[in-house]
C-alpha cells in the first residue's frame, strides 16, 4: 500500500470513530447541556446561557421529590423480596433434580416472552378485585415480575459453579449443612448473586409500564414521573430528571465493576 492509501484509510477510520462517538454520546451531551442551559434552540450552536434554575425547580417541587423518594424506597424493597424468594429457588434449581425442573426454568421466560402490556392489563383486572390498584404493594409486586428472571438464572448458575467437593470438604471438616451453605456455597456464589442484585435493582428502578398502569395517579416513581415531565414541563426539567435517574445505574455499575470483576470476589472463581 502506498503512503497516500494508508492516510486515506486512516482518515476513513477516524471519521468513522468520530461519527460513532457522536452517535452514542450525542444524546447524552444534549441532555447534560440542557440540564444547565437557560435555553438552547436551533440553529444556535451554543446555549444562550447557563443556570441552576432547573435543579432548584426540581428540588422545590414536592411532587418530583416524592417520586424520587418512592423510587429509592420501592427498588431496594423489591430487590430484597426478590432475593428472599428467588435465591432459595435458584439453589434448588442448581442442586436438586425434581419433577418439572426444566419446565419451570424455561417457564420463567414466559413472563418476558409476551408483550408486557397485555400481562399488566390482566393483572390490573385482578388488582381491582384485590384492591391493590394505586398501592405501594401493588407496585412492588408488578416490579418483582421483572426481577425474577435475573434473581433466579444468574444465582442458579453461580450456585451450580461451586464444586461439590468444596462442600464435601467443609462437611468433613465438621460443618453442618447450613454452615457449609453459608461459609462455602453462598460465599463462592456471592459475586453472581451481587450481579443479579444489581440487575434486579436496575430493572426495578427503570420499570415504567407496569408501575404507570398500577400506580398512577396515587404513586409516581421516577420513570413514571418522566411521562408527566415530558408532556407538561420545559424540556430542561426532563433533562435534569434524566440525569438524576441515571445516577444509581452509573454508581451501581461502577461499584460492581470494581468489586466483582476486578476485586477479591473474582478470586473465588480462579480455581485451577
Amino acid at each position, binding site marked *: 500500500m502506498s503512503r497516500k492509501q494508508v492516510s486515506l484509510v486512516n482518515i476513513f477510520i477516524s471519521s468513522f470513530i468520530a461519527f460513532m462517538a457522536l452517535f452514542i454520546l450525542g444524546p447524552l451531551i444534549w441532555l447534560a447541556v440542557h440540564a444547565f442551559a437557560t435555553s438552547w434552540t436551533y440553529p444556535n450552536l451554543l446555549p444562550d446561557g447557563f443556570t441552576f434554575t432547573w435543579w432548584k425547580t426540581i428540588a422545590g417541587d414536592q411532587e418530583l421529590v416524592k417520586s424520587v423518594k418512592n423510587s429509592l424506597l420501592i427498588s431496594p424493597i423489591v430487590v430484597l423480596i426478590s432475593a428472599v424468594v428467588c435465591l432459595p429457588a435458584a439453589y434448588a434449581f442448581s442442586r436438586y433434580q425434581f419433577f418439572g425442573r426444566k419446565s419451570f426454568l424455561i417457564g420463567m421466560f414466559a413472563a418476558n416472552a409476551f408483550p408486557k402490556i397485555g400481562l399488566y392489563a390482566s393483572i390490573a383486572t385482578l388488582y381491582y378485585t384485590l384492591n391493590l390498584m394505586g398501592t405501594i404493594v401493588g407496585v412492588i409486586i408488578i416490579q418483582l415480575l421483572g426481577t425474577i428472571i435475573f434473581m433466579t438464572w444468574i444465582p442458579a448458575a453461580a450456585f451450580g459453579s461451586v*464444586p461439590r*467437593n*468444596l462442600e*464435601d*470438604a*467443609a*462437611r*468433613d*471438616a*465438621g*460443618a*453442618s449443612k447450613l*454452615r457449609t451453605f453459608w*461459609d*462455602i456455597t453462598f*460465599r*463462592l456464589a456471592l459475586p453472581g448473586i451481587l450481579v443479579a442484585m444489581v440487575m434486579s435493582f436496575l430493572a426495578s428502578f427503570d420499570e415504567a409500564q407496569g408501575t404507570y398502569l398500577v400506580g398512577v395517579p396515587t404513586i409516581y416513581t421516577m420513570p413514571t414521573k418522566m411521562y408527566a415531565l415530558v408532556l407538561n414541563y420545559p424540556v430542561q426539567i426532563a433533562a435534569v430528571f434524566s440525569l438524576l435517574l441515571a445516577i444509581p445505574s452509573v454508581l451501581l455499575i461502577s461499584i460492581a465493576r470494581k468489586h466483582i470483576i476486578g476485586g477479591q470476589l473474582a*478470586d*473465588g*472463581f*480462579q*480455581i*485451577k
Partner: protein
Amino acid sequence: MSNSTGSGGLELQGLKKILGGRVIIDDLNLTVNKGEMVSLLGPSGCGKTTTLRMIAGFLIPDAGRVVLAGNDVTNTGPEKRPSAMVFQNYALWPHMSVYKNVAYPLKLRKMNKSEITKRVHNVLELVNLMHHKDSRPSQISGGEQQRVALARALVQEPDVLLLDEPLSNLDAKLRVKVREDIRDLQRRLGITTVIVTHDQDEALSISDRIAVMNGGRIEQFSSPQELYDRPATEYVANFIGSLNHLTGDYSNGRVTVGTKTIGIRPEDVHFTSTNESNGFEATVDHVVPRGHFSEVYLKREDAELRAFMSTNIPAVGEKGYAVIKKALIYENGKLLKVE
C-alpha cells in the same frame, strides 16, 4: 451390642451399596488396626472411592456397619465422624488463605483463638508451609496445595485419615517424594490411614497392608510382600506386577499338558546357555532395555516367556534354556499352590 474389635482402628462389616440400580459394593469386610496404613487398590470403577466415601460419611451404606475407633458411625453425618479426608483435587476453599483453610475445622470446634493459632502453626510447620500461610490456594503450586489439604486433615487430629488418590495430580518425581513424606508423617503421628489408589507402586511402597478390590469386593487383603509372592487369585496376580501366562500342568519346573493356569513372574524365569536344571529349549526373540534391567522375550514353537534379567543379557537369536524357578498355579481363578 457392639462386636467391634476394640482395636481403636476402623472396621467395615458387610458393607453394601447400590448406586443407580447397580451394586457397587457387595458384602465388603475390612479391619484396619490402629496406627496402620492400608491401601484400597484397584482399577477405576472397582468401588474403592465409594468405600472411602462410606467411611467418611458422604454415603450411607445400604447394609452393613462402619465402626470408627470403637464407635458405630454407620448413620452419622460426615461432620460428626472422627475422620478427616484429603480429596483427590484437594478441595481447598479458594476464598480463604492457606491459614484460614487449615484453621476452619478448628473454628467449627469453637476452639479459642490462641489455641487455633498454635495448632495451625504447628501443622503448617509439619508440612513445611509456614511461608505460604497468607497465600491463596490459587497462588501456590499443586504439590503445595496437596500439603495444605493434608495439613487441613491433620489439624483435626482425626482417628482415621482418609486419602483419596492423593498423588494422582502430581508429576512423577514429586509423587515419589510426597508419598515418602506422607508415609513418614503417618508413622511419626501413628495415625490410622486409609489410602485409595489405582497405582500399585504407590500401594506397595507405602502400605502396611493392601486390600485389592475387584467389582465391589476385596479379592485379597495382606501385606505387600505376601500380595506379590502369594497372590490369592489370578486377578490379584495380574494386577500386581507382571506375569507370564501358560495353560497346563506344572511340576518340577516342567509345564505339561493340562487345564490349570500357570503364572510365572518374569524375574523367576532364567535363561542359560547350558541346561543345568530342568530347563527347556528356547530362542531369544527380542530384548527391550528398561534401564536397570532388560526384558528378554524367549520363544519356543508353542509358547512365549518374558524374563527380567539384569546381568548377562543374551543377544537376539541366541539359543539356550529357559529355567522356571517359581510358578503360581491357579485353578478356577484361585491359587492352588506356589512351586
